[in-house]
């Protein structure tokens, strides 16, 4: 079976700053893959490179066995979608939920827009009552649901998730994570998920990669974290930190 996503020696350079240094990774179909690392380590850059939003200057990306070129066509966007970190910044401030969801359908020329919008909203647990609201009339969790609905409406097979819950309260985070898990199960989606919260990553992903300074430093199974079976100091630090504050003796 061809992997859903396969990246080889991917390199991204902003001006003269190398944000991603020859990173390789393969994600099987239906798998959920996690990315962790400190701020600025290139996690978002990796996702954005796949989505065609970052300047790739080396390496290759294959999606379902297809090599991607410099520009992405419409067909690509029906396969790969992304959910952004900041629910407040990823929804157009002047558009209703309806309009937001209509846009992708319109671009791809779907006919049964009415039904699809309805279904998408139901799927993310937002009743039709939210359909004609503006983004500022929604809470953070609701916004992230809308973003997920928008990503799902084109029925992609791969979903890129860039810290989808880090801006949300813990209670809301749980709801969104549950929703993501459910759609993944229902639709047999492939996930690539970024988070700086190890708890979230182990909860959601089977495998993960630890990044630092634009490079991979360690590849782990989710279980390794629970058993503290890690090789790198950096990863260990992350683990310790996630436990909370420890007062020195």
């Amino acid at each position: 079976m061809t992997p859903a996503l396969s990246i080889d020696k991917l390199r991204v350079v902003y001006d003269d700053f190398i944000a991603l240094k020859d990173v390789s990774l393969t994600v099987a179909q239906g798998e959920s893959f996690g990315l962790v690392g400190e701020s600025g380590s290139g996690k978002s850059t990796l996702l954005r490179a796949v989505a065609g939003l970052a300047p790739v200057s080396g390496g290759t990306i294959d999606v379902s066995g297809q090599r991607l070129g410099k520009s992405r066509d419409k067909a690509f966007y029906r396969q790969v979608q992304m959910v952004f970190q900041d629910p407040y910044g990823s929804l157009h401030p002047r558009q209703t939920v309806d309009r937001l969801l209509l846009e992708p359908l319109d671009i791809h020329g779907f006919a049964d827009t009415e039904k699809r919008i309805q279904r998408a909203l139901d799927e993310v647990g937002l009743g039709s009552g939210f359909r004609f609201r503006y983004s500022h009339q929604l809470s953070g969790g609701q916004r992230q649901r809308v973003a997920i609905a928008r990503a799902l409406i084109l029925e992609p097979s791969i979903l890129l998730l860039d810290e989808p819950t880090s801006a949300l309260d813990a209670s809301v985070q749980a709801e969104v994570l549950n929703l993501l898990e459910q759609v993944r199960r229902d639709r047999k989606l492939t996930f690539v998920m970024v988070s700086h919260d190890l708890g979230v990553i182990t909860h959601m992903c089977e495998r993960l990669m630890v990044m630092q300074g634009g490079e991979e430093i360690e590849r782990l199974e989710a279980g390794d974290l629970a058993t503290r079976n890690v090789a790198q100091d950096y990863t260990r630090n992350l683990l310790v930190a996630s436990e909370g504050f420890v007062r020195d003796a």
Partner: protein
Amino acid sequence: MNTLLHVEDLRVSFPTRTGVVEAVRGVSFALGQERLGIVGESGSGKSQTGRAIMGLTPQQAEIKARRLEFSGIDLLKASPAERRALRGNRIAMILQDPKYSLDPVMTIGRQIVETLRTHEKVGKAEARERALDMLAAVQIRDPKRVYDLYPHEVSGGMGQRAMIAMMLIAGPELLIADEPTSALDVTVQLDILRILDRLVIDRGMGLVFISHDLRLVSTFCDRVIVMYAGKIIEELKASELSQAKHPYTQGLLNCMPKIGADRHPLPVLDRQPEWLL
């Protein structure tokens, strides 16, 4: 333990076009030389509580309290000048995001010196010395260099340390830290907490630590106040957080994914209308 701060029935409300928004609805607590955590979800009124104590609420806001007293000074009756003299000097506040809280066109050193010279009559050279010491105290490795840098030239962690230095240089007795670490990496986060911790221990400072991260607060603070919709719904010792009685606190604790715990789906919070009352 002598009490630094008395807050009794603090209320903060904002008149808006759609009616009055009550951000804080009757908060009471007292604080000594200890670490008091305030937790709660977004919008529960944590920041407004802190700002009301500082006197930094926006002009249009209305502040009421039965008692708002800082080491014997009635803050509500104090003149603006008196409060200004307190701010930065005896009460200080660390803001959430160093990226926005530092003046972008002034060097870090000057911003620190500015606080000092507002409150104390010190010469330029001495002020500089003390600022450098302070930078060193918040564990900045190369204070001389950082002194002359602009905020955009330092990382978030460094910026937050500079912010702390700026707020601590006059040696306040009370520090309000409003989510001082939520913009930072987990590893940096702990460094900062360690600095704050030292200050409380070494200087005998009172600390109000505002956060939405229960795990952090429970491990860092002595006491915790849990807020919901502008009210305190529970107050307890930090170490006893896991035995919290209120279903809201319980729910918050439970819904976080933990390493090693395999709970699919995660339990979610079921809000009850009566919590609002």
